[in-house]
């Protein structure tokens, strides 16, 4: 009896572990930046509204809890999340800043005109270097950054109303 029970138990335990492993999304890695200071952005700001030559710097956002949303006009899920970001951030009073990742500024502006602009301002990251500093795996990605400039959360993929309600807002409320 024991002769079969032990191998069977080992097999079942292994199968359960591997089965659990299959359920997990291998892309969903914790950001290496969690609980670390956000890297400096220092990039020109998208659009004509701001005086030319102004750059988006971390110190501009100091003292408030804010979201950094990495986006591009060539990324379909980014287009979809724009209205959600706009409505939710206005409703809950959370400033969203954009990082326009490897995009053409004209195309990015054109998209914001059509889909609505959720961003206080967007930094232009043409060469993707700031994206690399933030350790992004793809667009869209959203970071929750606290008043001291520490990265508190990273969300991979588009922000839906459910994600906003169940993931981002609880984190922001905990920080407030």
């Amino acid at each position: 009896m024991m002769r079969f029970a032990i191998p069977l138990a080992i097999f079942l335990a292994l199968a359960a572990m591997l089965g659990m492993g299959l359920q997990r999304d291998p892309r969903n890695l914790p950001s290496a930046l969690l609980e670390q200071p956000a890297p400096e952005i220092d990039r020109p700001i998208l659009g004509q509204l701001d005086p030319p030559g102004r750059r988006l710097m971390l110190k501009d956002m100091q003292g408030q809890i804010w979201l950094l949303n990495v986006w591009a006009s060539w990324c379909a899920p980014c287009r979809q999340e724009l209205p959600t970001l706009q409505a939710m951030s206005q409703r809950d009073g959370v400033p969203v800043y954009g990082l326009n990742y490897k995009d053409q500024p004209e195309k990015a502006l054109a998209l914001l005109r059509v889909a609505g602009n959720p961003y206080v301002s967007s930094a232009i990251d043409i060469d993707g270097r700031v994206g690399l500093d933030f350790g992004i795996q793809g667009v869209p990605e959203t970071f929750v950054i606290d008043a001291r400039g520490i990265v508190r959360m990273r969300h991979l993929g588009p922000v839906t109303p459910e994600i906003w309600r169940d993931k981002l807002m609880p984190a922001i409320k905990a920080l407030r």
Partner: protein
Amino acid sequence: MTCSKTRSLLSLLSRLRRLCRLAGPLLLVTAAMLVPAAGVMARPSLDEREASLASQLRCVVCQNQTVAESRAPIAQDMRQQIREQLSKGSTDEQVVAFFEQRYGAFVRYNPPWKPSTWLLWLSPFLIALGGLWVLRRNLPGTPSDTLTSEERKRAQQWLEAGQEDHRS
């Protein structure tokens, strides 16, 4: 005549011996001079270092490929970044650290040896040891010398049955 012959032979031998004694250190010295020369010649070029680093780092989008294999745009950016860092004079370790700071230890294709990866590196050996132990336990020729209570009971039954047979 023979005596002088042996003497000359002996002197030749001693001269040879001296030569060897001299040649030994000489050989060592030349070898030592060759080592740094070989080191200079074998120092990998920037291209080779870039290629080697790219094959040690993981593409963060297509996770089962290295940066060298991947054709994803982000892997291109990473290769570009490797090149920039190297041409700025960074060491290979500094380049790996640059990516590790941004993407975590996951970005290394070979996990480093540290407490959280000890189990990962040691598990094959642990499993092999466990297998050997099971094999040794189950190998015939090593019967246990104590009887289990069940075996004892069966032996008792046999003994009693034998006695009954004997009586009848």
